């Protein structure tokens, strides 16, 4: 049986062993399942474990590989999917009580893609109810309860891909799928010390995923390294006629191999001077050290400022209006009161009253900032900043009153659909992970992956994991 270290191996390392038939997908799946059964409840990491599906898929993978039919780096590799992705015949709760018994009779496109490459689904990851679409005040805003951070169980994982972050950090699966409308991949990746990729809007089909704000929702991988994210992204990216928000065939697909980096262009990186008003001292120190690494390996690193404007305001309105439309029946029926969070129970009433004129003004502002950012990316391939200005916050924190600061980079990145990646870049004095964020031009997902990968070639923060007994 594999030893403890197996739980923290990257997909790339696991794949080498699986391909060489030195590691059995069935054994790997079984040990991850055992660990998830034992530790999953400690972190509230899962909505549900799926041992029957997992073992069936693992056996099929093993059989194929034994026969010499190796499908690629995700073949036989266990993962968890955020519980807003439809999996045929299984509950898909969206993390919310009103949908606790919801079952779809089809798979989300992302699940289909992962099935096709032979990945093994061991469970569905817990999440903030409705991905935070109705607002939330506390980390406990979830059908599964508060997700605890494997680095410190008195702290939160961030949301809304809370379980996905905990699962990867605690070594309960080799990778997880998360989603982001605004911050839901980048923040949990930073808080949990894992690598997370928010792809360009439209590169990954949302068919079968819960819709929150359809003009901003994105699906992406959370894993142990930038390279792993690239491999997973390659498996799930692509045009899908079932999701009309996906980009055309020639712009959707993504291929990755490490050799691509050999002929990759040298990246021009801009260090953002106004991404955050200030950083908490525990975060500032590792981020400062990270900038020294960047300066060393990206000699063209220069300071740059984000354009100033009401970009976040526009983003707020877009999310609010589209979210209120997505959950209109929930709001109007009054079943919104079944949500766990006191803010979630009422915010929809306020959000649903925006005027169409204000929504369209927000969309006009979106167009303006898209053009401004496109100009900025004529000078830089990637812009970088701390992923978050604070480390993981206490579970009991009132997010509404005690965690408040502007986030122009998150606002701009998400309303413009720009790709981003968070990679671990150190720890605070209290041993909480700190993340570094790269953001690229729309469609240039490879640039943010390349930046993350280069950083990880020269650091080993992504190889650290929490001590779990």
């Amino acid at each position: 049986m594999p030893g403890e270290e197996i739980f923290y191996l990257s997909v790339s390392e696991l794949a080498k062993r699986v391909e060489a038939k030195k590691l059995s997908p069935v054994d790997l799946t079984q040990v991850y399942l055992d660990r998830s059964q034992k530790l999953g409840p400690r972190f509230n990491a899962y909505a549900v474990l799926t041992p029957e599906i997992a073992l069936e898929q693992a056996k099929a993978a093993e059989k194929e590989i034994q026969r010499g039919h190796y499908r690629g780096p995700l073949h036989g590799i266990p993962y968890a999917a955020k519980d807003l992705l439809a999996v045929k015949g299984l509950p898909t709760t969206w993390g919310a009580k009103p949908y606790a018994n919801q079952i779809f009779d089809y798979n989300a496109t992302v699940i289909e893609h992962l099935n096709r490459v032979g990945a093994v689904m061991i469970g569905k990851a817990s999440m903030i109810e409705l991905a935070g679409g109705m607002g939330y005040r506390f980390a406990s805003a979830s059908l599964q309860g508060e997700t605890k951070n494997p680095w410190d169980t008195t702290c939160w994982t961030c949301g809304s891909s809370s379980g996905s972050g905990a699962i990867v950090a605690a070594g309960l699966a080799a990778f997880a799928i998360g989603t982001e409308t605004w911050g839901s991949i980048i923040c949990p990746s930073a808080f949990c010390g894992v690598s997370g990729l928010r792809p360009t809007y439209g590169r990954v089909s949302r068919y079968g995923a819960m819709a929150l704000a359809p003009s901003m929702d994105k699906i992406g991988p959370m894993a142990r390294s930038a390279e792993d994210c690239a491999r997973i992204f390659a498996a799930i990216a692509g045009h899908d006629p079932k999701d009309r928000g996906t980009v055309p065939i020639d712009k959707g697909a993504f291929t990755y191999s490490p050799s691509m980096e050999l002929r990759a262009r040298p990246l021009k990186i801009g260090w953002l001077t106004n991404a955050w008003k200030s950083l908490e001292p525990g975060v500032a120190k590792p981020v400062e050290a990270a900038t020294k690494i960047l300066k060393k390996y990206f000699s063209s690193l220069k300071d740059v400022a984000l354009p100033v404007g009401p970009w976040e305001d526009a983003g707020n309105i877009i999310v609010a209006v589209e979210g209120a439309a997505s959950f209109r029946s929930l709001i109007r029926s009054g079943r919104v009161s079944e949500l766990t969070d006191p803010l979630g129970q009422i915010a929809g009433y306020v959000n649903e009253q925006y005027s169409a004129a204000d929504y369209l003004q927000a969309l006009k502002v979106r167009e303006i900032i898209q053009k401004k950012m496109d100009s900025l990316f004529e000078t830089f391939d990637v812009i970088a900043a701390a992923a978050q200005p604070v480390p993981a916050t206490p579970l009991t924190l009132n997010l509404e009153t005690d965690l408040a600061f502007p986030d122009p980079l998150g606002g701009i990145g998400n309303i413009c659909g720009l790709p981003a990646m968070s990679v671990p870049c150190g720890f605070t004095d209290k041993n909480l992970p700190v993340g570094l964020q790269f953001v690229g031009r729309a469609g240039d997902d490879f640039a943010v992956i390349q930046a993350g990968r280069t950083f990880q070639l020269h650091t080993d923060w992504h190889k650290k994991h929490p001590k779990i007994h």
Partner: protein
Amino acid sequence: MSNKIDSAISRREFARRAAFASAAASLAPSSLLPPESVAAPWLTQQPANAPKLSPESQAEVESRIQSIFAQYGKRLSDAQKADIRRLATEAQPPLDRLRAFATNNGDGPGLYLKPLMEREKKPSPMPVTPKRANPPKNS
């Protein structure tokens, strides 16, 4: 928390963003409101630390709140009504900023419609032999 930073723009937490988003529409004439709601304290009390609004913006907030209460008031507790008042009030400054941002008539909204093209449907089969038209019945 030591990281608390004054925010004149917005909030980091996505949850909060979604929650703070508010309304500018549905003006409910006060004559349509249930009379008992007019005197209720949660309709008139300003939340502590409420943002300073222009009279026009304040009126808009009031109309929005009253619209919500007219529609959903029966299912809300007093505490929830007070919370809605606060949310609606705090959401007004971002709305004012957004409206004040200059855009030109030619600035298109960043929303694209992909027309549902016929190519996504199978072409209808052509009839091999054209049908004969029925003879007129009364000629």
